[in-house]
């Protein structure tokens, strides 16, 4: 039979001359029975701590913790890199096929929109990942441990929205820039553009802004629906299916609806609409997208505060 040797608590020597470290209770019987136990049962090496000396939970700490949680699940990072990689690859594919002489497809006007065409896919991934990082915590029960550690639910919601919005914005900005440069490199010189050309910076910034907005909406949907499947359904319906449905309506009914869909606002903020598409102003597009963000995050805030966790 083996005995486990415990390191002496570090306070032992100083305890007598430093009364503030004195702890009335010790672990005497635990040590005596160590032999029969699978693991040492020493529970602490420091006295019970009081929280008054520490500022405790704050928004900054929650931001830090949420970012830590995000980056310590490899599939999250893979999804972000995958979304960017898919957009870059598809953009390069579209760009290289433009050489067939038929010219770009109906949805692209020029080398710019051709090289960024892949973001139609990656935006869906970004939105669904936003849903999943929240819904998975509801599904595992982690959200309850989390709220017990950080009782301000609005701060928890804010930290998740903030961290994921930043992830979506930065990753998409990088991916859009790479996709643009790589796309121009492989497309026919006749349609290739450079970063300094009119509208290019707006398109890149607008693509990242749009990703940030639907990322925030995805996180809010995660809180509202608590299910990745349900949230993904809403994302796909709103971003992909709704624009198709609306186009089946008579234009007097369909156009006003189309104007408030996130997908049309995307064309406005990036300045890249399909051929013949009537696009609202950039400012109106930003307003529509922010309206969706504010509405969904507010709804999530109301629900998460009221509902039992």
């Amino acid at each position, binding site marked *: 039979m083996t005995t486990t040797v415990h390191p002496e608590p570090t306070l032992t020597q100083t305890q007598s001359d430093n009364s503030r470290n004195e*702890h009335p*209770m010790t672990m005497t019987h635990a040590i005596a029975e160590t032999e029969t136990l699978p693991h040492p049962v*020493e529970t602490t090496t420091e*006295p019970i*701590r009081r929280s008054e000396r520490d*500022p405790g939970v704050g928004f900054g700490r929650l931001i830090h913790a949420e970012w830590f949680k995000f980056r310590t699940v490899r599939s999250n990072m893979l999804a972000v890199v995958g979304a960017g990689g898919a957009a870059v690859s598809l953009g390069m594919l579209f760009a290289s096929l433009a050489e067939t002489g038929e010219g770009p497809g109906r949805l692209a006007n020029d080398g710019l929109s051709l090289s960024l065409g892949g973001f139609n896919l990656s935006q869906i991934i970004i939105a669904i990942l936003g849903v999943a990082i929240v819904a998975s915590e509801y599904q*595992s029960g982690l959200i*309850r441990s989390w709220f*017990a550690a950080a009782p301000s639910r609005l701060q928890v919601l804010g930290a998740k929205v903030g961290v994921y919005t930043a992830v979506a914005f930065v990753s998409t900005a990088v991916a859009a820039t790479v996709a643009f440069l790589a796309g121009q490199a492989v497309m026919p010189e006749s349609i290739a553009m450079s970063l300094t050309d009119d509208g290019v910076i707006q398109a890149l910034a607008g693509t990242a802004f749009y990703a940030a907005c639907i990322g925030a909406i995805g996180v809010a949907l995660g809180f509202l629906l608590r299910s990745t499947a349900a949230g993904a359904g809403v994302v796909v319906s709103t971003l992909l299916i709704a624009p198709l449905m609306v186009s089946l309506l008579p234009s007097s009914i369909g156009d006003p609806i189309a104007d408030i869909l996130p997908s049309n606002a995307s064309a406005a903020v990036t300045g890249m609409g399909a051929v013949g598409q009537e696009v609202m102003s950039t400012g109106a597009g930003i307003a529509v997208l922010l309206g969706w963000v504010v509405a969904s995050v507010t709804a999530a805030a109301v629900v998460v505060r009221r509902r039992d966790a």
Partner: protein
Amino acid sequence: MCDDGAGADDDDMIEVTNLTKTYGTNTAVDDLSFTVRPGIVTGFLGPNGSGKSTTMRMILGLDRPTSGTATVNGRTLNRHGAPLTEIGALLEAKAVHPKRSARNHLNALALTNGIPARRVDEVLDIVGLTEVADKAAGQFSLGMGQRLGIASALLGNPATVMLVEPVNGLDPEGVLWIRHLLRDLAAEGRTVLVSSHLMSEMALTADHFVIIGRGRMIADVTAAELEAMAPEASVTVGSSDPQRLRQLLARDGVEVTSTGHGLLSVVGVDSAEIGRIAADHAIALSELSNHRSTLEETFMGLTADAVDYGARSLVTAEAA
């Protein structure tokens, strides 16, 4: 705090006052009041669906009480700056992202309350998960998941610890370890509340019992008081002629019930007297055994009326 941070305070306790939670017309917790004191292990018992989990979620501020209050160390949990250093809770095993490592799960929780990273290593060591700390938590067995849950409960070195069904899924060694852990936490002056539906397990660790059924208080007693509530000892008698023996034993203060298969359960006469009566009347005994109620039977008796999902015994079902 005047004690400058060290040691437990007198107000390190859980106080539940007139706590009520209703869902529509269903009352899950009904005007519950009790205090969980430091230095002892308090067992929180009740049949499945009796309201234990709802009560504990309200203590943690996860569910909003319909009325009443639940405070931890003098305040509701949301009034504490760093809740993890006040109360550590294990609510459900494996409440972790399956792809995140055990160490990173604890690190993330530690970051929220400003708990130093070395404390993560300490609690991993306490629960014996150091070797698997960098494995994805989704690969853990139920028992390892319980240990990880206990590690997160101890993370903030809290004065109050609350564990839901901590022995679920643990092997015999693990069960033994939990018993010692609970006793040690109490011996260190912490407030320890452990919920279980297994009286037999709690009988070995708890000093105090809070027993509820259908959301209402049934008993708030010390271990000694609970023992005193045990029903009277009975004697089980197997004989060649149970009907005649039953007539012979019948007198004031004696209760004889047939328990099936020709066995009688007798309360009010001791086994020596029963043996003598049987010998006097030439009845052969095949069994004569004293039966003292276990705490488990006391518990079953106390909560019998409050069991939501009762099952019929197979023997009774066949006889019917």
